[in-house]
Structure formats: C-alpha cells, structure tokens
C-alpha cells in the first residue's frame, strides 16, 4: 500500500509537466487563531536503532522567542530537520499553525511557506557577494525559468539594503561572503533568513565561535526579531540563553525534559542532574 502511495505522490497526474510551470511564491495561509504557530506531536525518529527523537511534543506560540537547550545528542538538530522537511519522522505529526501539515511538504515548500532555518555551521554562499547572498534568499519567484530572466526591482533593492542594515553589514555589502569573519557570516545567514520573510526562524547555535561583543549584538538582533517573527533558538551557551530567553525548553534523549522560564528551569532538579549540573 505504501508503495502505491509513494507512486501516487511522486507521479501526480496533475503534475506531469509540473517542472515547466512557474512556481509562484506562496506564503502558506497559516491559521494561528489559537496562538500556536508550530506543533510537534508525538514525533519519533530512529536512525539505525538509535532513537534520536522519542515521542517529542512541543508547541511554540506566534511571536515567541523560544530557546531550546539540551546536551549533545538530545535531538535538537534532528527536531529542526523534521520541521524543515529534511528528515521524515517515523511517527508523529508536525503542524504549521493549525492547518498546514508540514510532513506533506518538501524542503523548498516549507522554506517558501514561511519557515527559515539557520544552520549550526554558518552556511553562506561564499563565492557570491553579501548582496547576492541576500538577493538569492529573497522571497520571490524561485522557479528556474523566471530566475533566468529575472531583474531586480527597485523595491527589492531597497529591501536588500534594509536587511543589510539590520544585520549591520552595510560596509561589506559588495564583499564576497567567503571573506567575512565568522561572526559576520552568522549575521549574514540570519539576514538571508529575514529576506525569506519567514513567520518562523529556526536558529541553530547562532553564537558559536563569536566574541563577547558579537554575542551581545546577536542577542539584541534576535530579541528584536521576536514579536514580528517567531524565533526558535537552539543554543549551548548558557550565558547567552540566560540573557535572551523568556521561555526555555530542555530536551533530553529525544523528548522534552522540562519547560518554563529560565529560573524555573535552573531550579528543576531533573535538569540540574542531566545538564546544568556543573554550570550553575
């Protein structure tokens, strides 16, 4: 049965020549009337017998700045992979708003639909300039034909300049992304997310390898983004989490161990045992 379903979904009769059709930029009609923008329900992922996610339940409200912490192997990155369509879970459901089933969508659809992702290792297009990096990430028609003949409109140019200013790289706009410092690459990648006009930003370890000063600026940037966007930050740096977090979720062995404000988390004996122990 599942084989038949596979064939039906990959070879849809109404999409035989789908690759010829323009691909409009579609922001998904996300219904967030109950407040939550992302639901992860009972999700399990197994890699060769290793349970990376074990019946994970998580719900994030619109406009929230949520920090997710947990020791190595707790399933933080796997959770992001599931939400962005990179990994298909064995069981469970993932919803964007109340109405959009993310498990039925491909990576590119999720990305266009409003969920942006920053990788753990800063990943920018090093052979292109800062401007071009932002241009490519911009929400616009991303079909192969239209990019071949595309020209930048003045509004789009303005938008790129705006985002360049938000991430503080005005001076470096014409530089190759490969020549930026580590911290600047992290900001550029956040800028690339912003260009996608996402509802949700998934940010994996934004301050890894940053200097104290850069860390502080990144914290300000992320807190300023929350509200208009929903920001989910996965981070190891406890001082950083403490400085920005309002609500923290602790993952452990693939499921949620505790959730609450930073103070609640820090005084939770289970959390202290598995994670915070020697740090507090």
């Amino acid at each position: 049965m599942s084989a038949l379903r596979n064939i039906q979904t990959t070879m849809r009769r109404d999409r035989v020549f789908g690759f010829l059709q323009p691909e409009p930029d579609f922001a998904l009609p996300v219904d967030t009337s109950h407040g939550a923008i992302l639901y992860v329900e009972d999700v399990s992922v197994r890699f060769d017998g290793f349970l990376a996610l074990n019946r994970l339940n998580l719900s994030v409200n619109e406009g929230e700045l949520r920090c997710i912490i947990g020791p190595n192997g707790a399933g933080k990155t796997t959770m992001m992979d599931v939400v962005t369509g990179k990994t298909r879970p064995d069981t469970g459901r993932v919803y964007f708003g109340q109405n959009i089933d993310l498990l039925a969508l491909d990576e590119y659809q999720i990305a266009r639909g409003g969920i942006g992702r920053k990788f753990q290792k800063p990943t920018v297009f090093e052979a292109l300039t800062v401007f071009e990096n932002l241009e490519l990430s911009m929400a616009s028609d991303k079909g192969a034909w239209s990019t071949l003949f595309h020209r930048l409109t003045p509004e789009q140019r303005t938008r790129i300049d705006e985002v360049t200013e938000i991430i503080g790289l005005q001076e470096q706009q014409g530089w190759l992304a490969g020549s930026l410092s580590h911290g600047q690459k992290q900001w550029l990648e956040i800028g690339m997310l912003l260009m996608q006009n996402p509802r949700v930003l998934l940010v994996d370890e934004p301050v890894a390898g940053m200097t104290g000063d850069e860390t502080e600026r990144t914290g300000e940037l992320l807190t300023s983004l929350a509200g208009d966007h929903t920001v989910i930050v996965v981070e190891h740096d406890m001082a950083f989490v403490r400085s920005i977090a309002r609500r923290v979720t602790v993952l452990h062995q693939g499921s949620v161990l505790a959730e609450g404000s930073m103070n609640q988390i820090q005084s939770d004996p289970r959390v202290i045992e598995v994670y915070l122990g020697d740090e507090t």
Partner: protein
Amino acid sequence: MLTRRLFLSDWGGITVLVLLLAMVVAVPYANLVLPPESPWHLSTYWVALLGKFLAFALLALAIDLIWGYAGILSLGHGAFFGLGGYAMGMYLTRQIGDRGVYGHPELPDFMVFLSYESLPWFWWGFDMFWFAMLMVVLVPGLLALVFGWLAFRSRVTGVYFAIITQALVFALMLAFFRNEMGFGGNNGLTDFKDILGFSVQARETRVALFVISALTLIAAYVAARYIVTSRFGRVLIAVRDAESRTRFAGYRVEHYKLWLFVFSAMLAGIAGALYVPQVGIINPGEFSPLRSIEAVLWVAVGGRGSLFGAIIGAFAVNGAKTWFTAAYPQVWLFFLGALFVLVTVFLPRGLVGIFRRRRTEGGA
C-alpha cells in the same frame, strides 16, 4: 545594459571571442585567397583540424558550464556528443544515395551487407536536413532529461553521479558496437559525400564548416555567459557551494540542475554534429569512456569555472596532442600524463589561473 552584464570584467572571454572572430576572417582568407606558395597559406588539412578543435572546444564549454558552475561532474558527456554526431552522420549517410559501393538507392552499404529489407523506422526522416538538425539537439536533450531527472531527483551527486555517467556512456558504446542496432556497428558511419548538396571533401565546404563551427562556438559562449551572469547562474553557484542551504532558501535544486544539464547536453550534441562532417566519420569509439574523461581534462587544464578557459584548454591539449602524436608518437601518452600531473600540482586553477587573479577580499 545586457552587453555590459555579459562582458563586464570578462577580459579573458573577450580575448577568446576576439581571437575566434579573427580566425573566422583569417582562416578562409589564408586558405581560399592566398596562393599555395605564400608562406601564410593555410592548407585545407589545417582548416579541418582547426574546425575539429572548435567542435571540441564547444564540448569543453558544455562540460565547464555544468562542472564549473553547478558542480555536476559528468564523465559521460561523450554520450551526448556522440549522439549528436550520429544524428549528423545519419543525415550524411542518407545523402550518399545510390553512390554507395552496393549502389542501393535507399539503404546504406552496411544495411545491404547485413541484408536489411528496408530502412529501419529510426532512420526515417534523416534524409531531411532540418529533421536531422532537430534530432542533433533533441536526442541528447531527451536522454539528458530522463537521465538527469532520475539522478537529480534521487539526489545523486558528486562522484556517484560521475560514475553513473561513465556507465551511461559505456552502455551506449556497447550498444552501438552491435550490428543489430542498425548504426553500422563498429565501423560506424563514414564515406560521406554531400552536405546540403555541397561535397564534404571540397575546400570551400571545409572552410564553410569551419566558419559555422566558430560562429556556433561564439553563440554558445554568449548564451552560456548569459546563463551564468543571470540570477539562475548565481543559484547554480549557490548549489555548487552549499546545496542544502539553497534548498532551505526555497529553491528546487533538482530543477536547476536538470535544466542546465539538458542545455549542456544539447550543446554537446551540436558539437558532435559539427565534428562529424569535418572528420568524415562517426563510430562507437566516440562513446569510449576514456574520450569523455579526456574532455573533462581539457576543462581542467584550461581552468574550470571560467567558460573561456574550457575553450583554451580544448585548443591547448588537442594542439599538443596533434603535434606530439606526429612528432613523438611513442611518448604522447607520457606527455599527457605529465601534463595533467603538472597542471594539478602547479596550476590547480588551470591555464587561465596564471592570468586571472582571484576576486580578492573586499575588492568587489
């Protein structure tokens, strides 16, 4: 505006285009106008040889477009080159008419020899030039579409992709070696007489083929340049350097790769079609995996990812090959090996790397 975009800071490309245009004028002049006694006279042998290099340069350009810009390493581009060549060869074979050894009005010699009763269906239409030219681009394009769709959809990349392209070209070689395929078996198609009513042996035809090859190469270069300077081209570079980032930026990476691959295959097919009338033969040897690898090495020697470097590389390696195989036939392969070792070790950016300075930090 467009001209500016295409050629801004592409000095190497402009130089190569100017040289090609100069050849378009100088080669016919040196062959047709100058008397044979003149020291500047160019023999017809040389015209055909240079024309062959131009076809190779077009193949190299097609490879550089996918390898240098999208990071798709195809070690089987000879497949598309060969198919384009066969389409042209079939047209030329049909033009022989009853002048073959057996004098059959419709069937080519090898079919008479193999006691065919009538022309197989896949030879229908090849007596018409326009149809054959359509097949020159359509057959390689369709094969690339099907092959690429399957490969890119399954996210086959890098060395795995390179290996299956080798398998593709090898399979084609084995198939075309079989007499039952109806393409002349290991002898291939040869003994051509006319193209569009002109004798393929005639000096003027050779010169015309040379000029057409040069103009086609120029047009292909400009088209390729258009692609790589468009936003499409920047997406390709993004795919090459960070494929999954590109996906999470909302691009359907497979589609980009597929279209580029099909375009590149069509260019390779055209290259094959230009090659065949100038060398006078097409046989399954063109599908030999080694030939495809050699073509990739032209690009590597010239300098990957610059387009014009591929043209320079094709001329440099084939020029050296022509000279060496005539002067020192025994040591040619050693020279070839040494060349590639030297280029890899000392010129990782190819010949153009000597002249091209890196886009340096902060200097955009």
